């Protein structure tokens, strides 16, 4: 059928075309349209019967002339040609080259939808990835094979944080040549895309990078394919070429909005804020492609970036993302305003796989306790700060005043660091102890007595 052209478009409306009388078209087939001006458009079969085939057109149906529209059904799903040569290349949102270089020639094509990973085939992520950021490594650490999003908001430096993580991420004791990055951007400005490209270039990582770009002014529906194409590349690199792949995706909010747009056109029942009820499963299909597989050397670690509409963490996009991913790194507008970079709000942040990737086997035996103590002490310090705002710092008890100072030091010295500053995890832990030494030992009940004896040095903190 793929060589036949049909001219039986019966209706077109908001991105959807109904083709009449084309029997036997399979669901999920890729479609190629040619309009009256000879321009090509891409589409996908989303509903099919012998009488009518519903096609979703990525570039939209504006000024489509039904009588002069020719449609071919390509008898295959969207797929991506894969080979080692994808490294160092830049593709558009559906996996076609956009770097002016020739298309990938390969006998191997992969359906970009993938197939669900058998849960019995997974291997649990365990190895610690050092990002060089204390707020992450010390308290919300990343584990190889984890999916850990960055929750941000308009105007916050999430791109810089993501780029810094990409530049610095390393496994303790592993060669960097095993690491590759798949970067997918959808709905971002060309300026942001350029920032990433340059930042990766600086680190000399370009030949270990694959990019998929669908910019803000490019077809919205195409965005639905971009993360899938990117993961198809990542899976190939991880499971067939044994690379450790770090996938960075931005901005998931643009993706979800594209999905909503299409859902409205299809007439799907909305669940919350106009987003379809299947947004959760749809996001999960993407995010769950990260991970590790038994008996495979490679792995896929995912850092999706999303901007929370109105900084609202209960908005469906961050909410559903949080329900799928293994934690989140939350950026804070308040810390940003105080000049803290990276402005990581540690309390709402969480890395669920941290417990399995730190401690004696991976970092240092005191690491889990220190992290827990930092959380408890900082939470307490924030309470004190709230109190100080009411009754004034002078009226605080001696111990409370120490907590107040701890909060300041913690935010500016532990969370805050330079954009080029790479702190190894031991430096972060030592720094943590230095700050904890500002507090009375008796209040530090999350660390063991032995650890207190070894690391708690009030004298040094006083200096």
């Amino acid at each position, binding site marked *: 059928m793929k060589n036949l052209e049909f001219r039986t478009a019966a209706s077109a409306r908001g991105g959807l075309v109904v083709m009449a009388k084309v029997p036997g078209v399979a669901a999920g087939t890729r479609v190629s349209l040619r309009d009256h001006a000879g321009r090509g458009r891409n589409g996908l079969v989303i509903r099919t019967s012998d009488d009518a085939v519903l096609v979703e057109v990525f570039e939209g149906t504006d000024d489509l002339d039904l009588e002069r529209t020719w449609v071919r059904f390509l008898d295959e799903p969207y797929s991506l040609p894969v080979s080692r040569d994808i490294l160092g290349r830049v593709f558009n949102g559906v996996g076609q080259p956009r770097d002016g270089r020739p298309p990938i020639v390969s006998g191997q094509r992969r359906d970009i939808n993938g197939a669900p990973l058998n849960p019995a085939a997974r291997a649990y992520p365990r190895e610690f990835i050092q990002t060089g950021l204390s707020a992450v490594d010390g308290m919300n650490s990343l584990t190889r094979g984890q999916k850990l999003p960055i929750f941000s908001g308009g105007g916050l430096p999430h791109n810089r944080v993501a780029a810094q993580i990409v530049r610095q991420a390393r496994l303790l004791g592993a060669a960097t040549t095993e690491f590759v990055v798949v970067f997918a951007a959808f709905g971002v400005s060309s300026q942001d895309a350029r920032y990433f490209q340059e930042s990766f270039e600086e680190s000399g990582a370009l030949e270990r990078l694959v990019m998929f770009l669908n910019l803000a002014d490019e077809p919205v529906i195409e965005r639905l394919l971009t993360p899938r194409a990117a993961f198809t590349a990542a899976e190939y690199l991880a499971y067939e070429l044994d690379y450790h792949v770090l996938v960075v995706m931005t901005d998931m909010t643009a993706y979800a909005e594209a999905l909503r747009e299409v859902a409205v056109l299809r007439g799907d029942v909305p669940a919350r804020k106009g987003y379809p009820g299947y947004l959760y499963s749809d996001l999960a299909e993407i995010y769950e492609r990260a991970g590790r597989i038994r008996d495979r050397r490679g792995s896929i670690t995912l850092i999706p970036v999303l901007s929370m509409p109105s900084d609202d963490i209960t908005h469906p996009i961050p909410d559903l993302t*949080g329900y799928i991913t293994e934690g989140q790194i939350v950026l804070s507008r308040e810390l940003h305003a105080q000049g803290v970079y990276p402005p990581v709000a540690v309390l709402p942040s969480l890395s669920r796989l941290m417990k399995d990737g730190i401690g004696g086997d991976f970092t240092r035996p005191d690491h889990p306790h220190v992290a827990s103590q930092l*959380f408890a002490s900082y939470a307490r310090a924030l309470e004190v700060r709230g109190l100080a705002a009411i009754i004034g710092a002078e009226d605080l008890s001696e111990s409370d005043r120490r907590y107040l100072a701890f909060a300041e030091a913690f935010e500016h010295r532990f969370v805050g660091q330079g954009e080029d500053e790479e702190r190894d995890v031991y430096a972060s832990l030592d720094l943590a102890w230095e700050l904890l030494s500002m507090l009375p030992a008796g209040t530090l009940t999350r660390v063991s007595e032995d650890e207190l004896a070894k690391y708690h040095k009030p004298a040094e903190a006083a200096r």
Partner: protein
Amino acid sequence: MAKVLEINGPLVRLELPGAVLGEQVSVGALGLVGEVIGRDGDTALAQLYEDSAGLAPGEAAAGLGHPLSVELGPGLLGGIFDGIQRPLEAVRQVSGDRISRGIRVPSLARGRRWAFAPAPDRSAEMVINAGDILGSVQETASIAHRILVPPDVSGELLELAPAGDYEVDATIARVRSHDGSIRKLTLCQRWPVRIPRPFRRRDHAVQPLVTGQRILDTFYPLLKGGKAAIPGPFGAGKTMLQHQIARWCNAEIVIYVGCGERGNELTDILESLPKLTDPHSGRPLMERTLLIANTSNMPVVAREASVYVGITIAEYFRDQGYDVVMVADSTSRWAEALREVAGRLGQMPVEEGYPAYLGSRLAAFYERAGRVETLAGGSGSVTLIGAVSPPGGDFSEPVTSHTKEIIQTFWALSKELADARHYPAIDWLESFSGYIGQAARWWADNVDPGWAPARARALAMLSESEELRRIVNLVGVDALSSEQRWSLEAAELIKEALLQQSATDEVDSYASPAKQYLLLAGLLDIYDRGMRLVGQGVPARRLLELPVLGEARRWKTRYGDADIAGLRERVARLVEDFMPLEAEYFPAGPGEG
């Protein structure tokens, strides 16, 4: 000829005369499996458990003549199955890392032989009834899998196989039914998942399900045969809590249903349970556990089925006389799958897109929990614990609010507590248990009669401390009297030394009821002693400096269950911790009295 007419996502319209609602269908060249959900003349509407991509109108379809049912018999335990009971380890052998479509593998492995021992009191010519025990297979070292007469069979036992090794589908008995027909019984039987398995009658639940989690057992207990919900926003600890229950609870069988959640969480169980030992039986935990997985990236339609597959297997072990716990993570994903089906059928949404029957479906599902007298005359129970994932953490949403009306124990997780890393982040004010009376009797008989009053006092202190906190946050701690400051400190002590429990700490992960009670009693003793001194004029400030306050926070990790005696001895010595203050303020004589 039955064939595909239309494909719309997982929904297919088939020409399939005579299809029955709920009937299983096989569709297309790949043989995709699905279920009939609507009929109109000769056409049937079916939803597929597998992705429909590539399926074309005109492909063949067939009705399979039976509803979705599960295979029940030896070989279930220790396994992991998908939402329609395909064994995922065997699937992996056939199709590799990814699940290919249309794959058919028997739920229970064939070729493996099980040592069957007939029940000594059964012999040919006896009359047997539905649910009777024919014999058993020692499936794991701790679980004897009892082979039951299926619920729809009774009559004269013509023949019962002698002890020996049999495959699951080998005939081990023949029965002449009352209508004269002859039924062959095997080690396994099938049961349709949407129909509850019958029992003789419901019994009252009486025994607590001991989970080793202090805030659950001591404050908001659940009974064997009870129903509980764990609602909470993302990251609050629903899964961790369910893992803890699956690990440590004193049930005989645990069924863990991962319904629309993460693949890694199942991997975690698969990798960790075989290494952990059941504190009650001393055997590897995996031997009593069974996993059902429809992870969030697996097809949504099978998600709706997965909880029914789980509960049916739970009932089957209940019918053998076992105490079974089923945890479902998360029932919200199941409800969402229901919502999707309703949407596709064009049913009128009532709240947030959910159909009007959401509440009754949830209730009917939880109703399958309970303690019963089995058909065989024994006693068994199914305890049901469902996680709920409310959008935005809003407990007023439909799934949480309906569930809350159905269950008796409510473990409400709070984002504030989780953010402060107070784990388990169970909100002591929002949570409730309707089983306190029964639990109190058990604690009194088995641990200490002081349990009920001690629990009530601790809860009262916690709720009073909320009030005090509000005052402190408004005007500072100086506004409190010495008594109030001490109460506040004692409540903090209870939170940190008792309620907080780390799942990742080897010692703290499980606390026996005896340890739980000793900790509670010890902390209350500290409170009382301090209060007495404060009442006699000792300033609270001085009491707050007592080293015992820091030390008591470490008791939970210092005294493991092997060292209960040490904890008891420590608690008995509390009088000494207050001696220096007494000596200082009341040098003349004892302050007590």
